């Protein structure tokens, strides 16, 4: 391993270019450490986003050597000895340098019916949900999402159709479809069905391959496909 890392960092917004920095190599160094070193020691005008540094907040995702990754938990040593290329996430508008506008990503969570709709009246007793029930286990499999947009950035369908809701929003919808307390299922299935929703997914599984939390949006989306087909078959409003 060389003593320094040659880091190619994207500078500018939609139009811009790579700038190369030389960063000293350290033990247990993450990609976020490299970016932070550049900002603190070499060029304070570098813009990027992070908060927790321990893989919880979901704000530090960037494109590292062509793949979307959470930079705070991506060790430079694991990426090999070549130059390190860091770009903003794909499929989202670039604001400046490594920061993207996350608004379209979270707007789609709302569009996909990602909000819990209580069915019980206020003041009602607690709902009893068996931990071992099938629905609860389906919901459990998807609820650890940290909203980092790595899957959204890895998804071809998003790049082919800007309206496509994307893996994270659909995964969120699937956890709510399996929430027996929720009363907004019909509107939700309407929102997630079709050309810009679950039925556009081709199970390429790039979301599953790249999810830092090892979630499986492909399986969640498959669940939505079946649930909305059942709803469409039965008719309804």
């Amino acid at each position, binding site marked *: 391993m060389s003593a320094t890392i040659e880091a190619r960092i994207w500078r500018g917004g939609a139009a811009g270019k790579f700038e190369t920095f030389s960063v000293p190599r350290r033990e247990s160094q993450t990609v976020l450490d490299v970016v932070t070193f550049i900002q603190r020691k070499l060029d304070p005008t570098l813009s990027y986003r992070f908060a927790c540094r321990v893989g919880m907040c979901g704000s530090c995702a960037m494109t590292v050597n062509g793949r979307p990754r959470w930079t705070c938990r991506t060790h430079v040593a694991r990426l090999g000895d070549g130059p390190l290329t860091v770009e903003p996430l794909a499929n989202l508008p670039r604001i400046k340098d490594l920061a993207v506008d996350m608004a379209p990503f979270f707007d789609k969570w709302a569009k996909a019916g990602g909000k819990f709709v209580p069915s019980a009246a206020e003041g009602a007793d607690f709902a009893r949900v068996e931990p071992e029930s099938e629905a609860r286990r389906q919901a459990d499999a998807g609820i650890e999402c940290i909203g980092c947009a790595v899957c959204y950035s890895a998804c071809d*369908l998003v790049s082919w*159709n800007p309206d496509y809701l994307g893996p994270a929003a659909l995964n969120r919808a699937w956890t709510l479809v399996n929430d027996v307390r929720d009363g907004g299922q019909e509107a939700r299935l*309407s929102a997630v069905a079709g*050309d810009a*929703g679950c*039925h556009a997914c081709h199970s390429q599984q790039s979301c599953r391959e790249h999810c830092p939390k090892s979630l499986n949006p492909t399986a969640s989306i498959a669940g939505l496909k079946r649930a*909305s087909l059942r*709803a469409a*078959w039965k008719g309804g*409003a």
Partner: protein
Amino acid sequence: MNFRARAETIAWGAQRASAAVLGVCVLVHLATILYAVRGGLTAAEILGRTRGSAALALFYGLFVVAVSIHAPLGLRTIARETFGWRGGALDLAAAAVAVFLVWFGWRAVGGLFG
């Protein structure tokens, strides 16, 4: 479910249902191809097997219907994703392809089995 969501969902379901039918049809078709090509193909050999066989005619008639549902829906998806072509005109074009394939396919089945 609203109309648009329902229509797209049904279209998706039709593509998967036709895929399931095609799964069986293509398996039989592939086995037939691999068996029939031994020693070369002649028209007499093919027509000797097909002419007057109601069961085979029915099978291939169904095969044509399934593929005429499956292929246009697939092409429609490719048009959307590759060229960004969406909307009513695309749906109409896909339907036209479906009608053409059924007609052209049944015509061939008629020629072989009639």
